[in-house]
C-alpha cells in the first residue's frame, strides 16, 4: 500500500501550522498597527518627505543593508544602547513607514536606526563640531563627505566610497557653493571640484530622517531628563528642517571646513 497520500496530508498540515504561526498570526497582530500621535500631536512614525523617500530608494539600490542594520536591541544586548545607537529598543511600530523595513543582519558598519539624531561623539569615528553655531549643516556635510570617501572622515573604515553619487567638474569662475571642501591627499586636482548629485543629497536627507526615539507604550523611554541622545535630538531635528528647505548647505562660511571638523578623530 502506498503511504504517499498520508505523507502529503502530513506535509500540508505541518506547513499550514507554520504558515499560521509565522505568516498569519503576526499579520493579525501587527497588520492593524497605525501611526500614533506624539505629545506634540505629530504622527509617529511621521511621513518621510520627498527627499527622504528618494534617499531611501538610493539606500536600497546600493544595498547599504549588507553592512548596516537598523534596529536597536534591548539594554544588555550586545551594548547597542550603551554604545549610543539608541535610547530605547526598536519595536514593530518604528517601521510602519519603511518599505520594506531594512532591519539588516550584519554590522560591518554601525547601526543606523537613530543616525538622524546621533551625537557626533557616538559616531564610529568620533567627530566634533568645528563651530558651535551651525552643527546641523556640519553634520550634513560630514555625511556627504563620508559618502564620497569614508577615509576622509573615518580613517580605517572598510566602507566603500560612493563617488558615483557625486560629480567631479572643472571650476569655471568661482567655486560652487555646494562643492565638498576636501583638503589633503583625497582632494581633487587643482581647478576641479566635487559636487554632490541629487542622489547624494537625498541619501543624507534619508539618513537624517532616521530616528526611533518616541516614547511608546511597548517601548518607553528610560526615565530621567539627562539623556545625551535626547539632547542631540532637539538640535539636529530642528536643523534638519532647515536643510530640507534650504537649497545650499555650504552657504555659511563657518562650517565649510569638513576636513577640520574631523581632525579630532584623525588625531585619536
Amino acid at each position: 500500500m502506498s503511504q504517499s497520500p498520508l505523507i502529503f496530508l502530513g506535509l500540508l498540515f505541518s506547513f499550514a501550522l507554520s504558515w499560521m504561526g509565522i505568516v498569519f498570526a503576526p499579520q493579525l497582530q501587527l497588520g492593524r498597527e497605525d501611526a500614533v500621535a506624539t505629545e506634540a500631536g505629530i504622527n509617529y512614525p511621521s511621513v518621510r518627505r520627498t527627499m527622504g523617500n528618494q534617499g531611501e530608494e538610493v539606500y536600497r539600490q546600493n544595498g547599504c543593508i549588507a553592512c548596516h542594520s537598523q534596529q536597536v536591541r534591548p539594554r544588555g544586548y550586545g551594548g547597542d544602547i550603551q554604545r549610543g545607537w539608541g535610547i530605547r529598543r526598536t519595536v514593530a511600530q518604528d517601521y510602519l513607514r519603511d518599505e520594506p523595513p531594512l532591519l539588516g543582519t550584519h554590522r560591518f558598519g554601525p547601526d543606523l536606526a537613530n543616525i538622524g539624531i546621533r551625537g557626533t561623539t557616538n559616531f564610529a569615528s568620533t567627530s566634533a563640531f568645528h563651530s558651535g553655531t551651525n552643527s546641523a549643516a556640519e553634520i550634513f556635510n560630514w555625511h556627504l563627505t563620508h559618502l564620497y570617501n569614508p577615509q576622509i572622515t573615518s580613517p580605517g573604515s572598510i566602507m566603500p566610497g560612493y563617488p558615483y553619487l557625486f560629480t567631479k567638474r572643472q571650476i569655471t569662475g568661482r567655486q560652487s557653493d555646494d562643492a565638498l571642501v576636501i583638503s589633503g591627499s583625497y582632494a581633487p586636482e587643482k581647478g576641479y571640484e566635487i559636487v554632490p548629485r541629487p542622489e547624494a543629497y537625498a541619501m543624507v536627507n534619508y539618513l537624517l530622517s532616521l530616528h526611533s526615539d518616541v516614547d511608546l507604550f511597548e517601548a518607553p523611554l528610560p526615565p530621567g531628563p539627562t539623556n545625551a541622545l535626547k539632547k542631540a535630538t532637539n538640535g539636529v531635528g530642528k536643523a534638519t528642517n532647515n536643510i530640507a528647505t534650504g537649497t545650499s548647505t555650504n552657504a555659511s562660511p563657518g562650517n565649510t571646513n569638513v576636513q577640520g571638523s574631523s581632525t579630532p578623530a584623525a588625531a585619536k
Partner: protein
Amino acid sequence: MSSSTPTLPPVESSGLPATEVLDSAEQIDASLRAQLMLLISSASIWGVVAGFLGLIAGIKLIIPGFWNDCAWITYGRIQPAASNALLFGFAIQAGFAVLLWLVCRLGARTLASGWTVLVGTKLWNLGVLVGTFGILSGDSTNLEGLEFPKYTVPILVLGYLMIGVSALMTFASRNRRELYVSQWYLLGAIFWFPWIYGTVAYLAVFHPMRGVVTPLLAAWFRNGVSTLWLSPLGIAVLYYFIPKITGRILYSRYLALVGFWVLAFSGAWATLQIGAPVPAWIVSVTVASSILLLIPLISTSVNLLVTLNGFNGAKSNIWPFIKVATYCFVISSLLLIWANMPGLNKLTYFTIFGDGLRALYLHGFVAMSFFAVIYYVLPRIALKGELSASLTKVHFMLTLSGVSIVFLALALGGWLQGTALANPLNSFMKSVETTSIFLKIGFLGGLLLFLGQIVFCLNVLGFLGKWGKNQVVPFLAEVRATEPARRTK
C-alpha cells in the same frame, strides 16, 4: 555499468511484490540524459559565476577603495548578487538534478514529462540571470536572502512549477510502490519549496505586507529554503548512498521516521535574532523550534553515523564526498541550532559568525552531497566515458580545504567581532579591526572554493564536450563515408 549495483539500498529490497514491473537503471538514466546534462552543466557554470562575484565582494571588504567608481560592483550589490547566484543558480539547480534522479531511481520509473523539465530549466536560468543583473543594476528587493527583483519572480515560479510537475508525475506513477526513507524527503521537498517561495514572493515581494512582517517572511524563507529544501535533498542523498556504498542495511527506519516528521513540523519556523523588533512570542517560538530541530538532527545523525561506522574500504570515487557531507551535516546543523540559542545569538547575530556556519552547511554538506550525485550520475547517463579522476580529486581537496578555512576564519572572527561589539567601552572601529584579519583569511578560503568550482565546471563541461564529440564524430564519419556513394549515384 550500474547493473551490478542494486538501485535501492538493501533495506527496501526485501518483500517487494513480484508483480511490479520496474524500469531498469539504464532505461531510467537514459530518460534523464538531456535534462540532467542541462541542469548539471548550468549549475556548474553558476557555481563559477557565484564564486567570481563572491570573490569581488571579498576584495571589496579588504580593499574598500577597489573600483569604487563602478556602482554595479559596490559591496551592497555584489554581495547579494553572489549569494543569490550561489543559492538559486548553483545549489537549487543542482538540487533539481538530484531530486529528479533520485525520484526516478527510487521509484524505478523513467522520467515523466521530460520536456517540461527542459523548458523549466531554461526559465529558471533566465530568472537567475535576470535577477542577478537586476541586483547589480540596483533593483534589489532588500529582503535578505530574497533580493531578486519583483520581475524575476514569475519566471522563477513558472520554471519551478514545470520542473516540479515532472518530479511529481514521476513520483505518482512510480513502479515501485513502497516508499524508501529518501522518498519522504523528496516528496517533502517537491511541495515545500513552492509553498514557501510562493507565499513569500506574493506577500513580501508582490503585495508586501506592511512593517516588520516582510523581513519576518524573508527570515522564514531563508530558514525554510535550507531546512525544507536543501537539507531534505542532502539527507535523501545520504540515506540513498550510505547503505548502497557500504552494502549495509539502514540502522533504523523508525529513527528516520521520527527525524522526518519532527523536521516537517519544526523546520519551517523562522529564525530571528533575540531582541528583534517583533512581538516577543515570535522570537520565543523561533528559539523553541530550533531546540525541537535537535530531534531530527540527532535521529538522522545517529542513523547515518551508525550505518557508516567503521566502514572505510570503499573503492567508490564518491565516498569521500559522502563522508564529508555527513560530518558537515552533523557539525553545521548543530552549530546553526546553537547559534539560535539566546546566549550565543546575542553575541554573534550581527557578525560574520553565521556566515561561517552557513558556508560549512552549504559547501560542506549540501554541495558535497550534490557533487556526489553528479559524479555518480554523469557517466551513467552518458553511457560511456569517465570523468577525470584527478580533476575530481583536486576538486574535492580544494572544496574541503576552502570550506574548512572559510568556516574556521569566519566563525572565530565572528565570535571575536561579537565580543568586541558587546563591550561598549570598545570603539566601533576596534570591532572592524578585529574582523578584518579574519576576512582576509576567509578570502583565501573563498579563493580555494572558487578554484574548486572552476575545476568542477571544467571537469563536467570537459566530460560533456567529449561525450558530445563522440556522438558527433561517428555520425560525421558515417556521413562522409556515404558521401562518395551518393555522388556517384
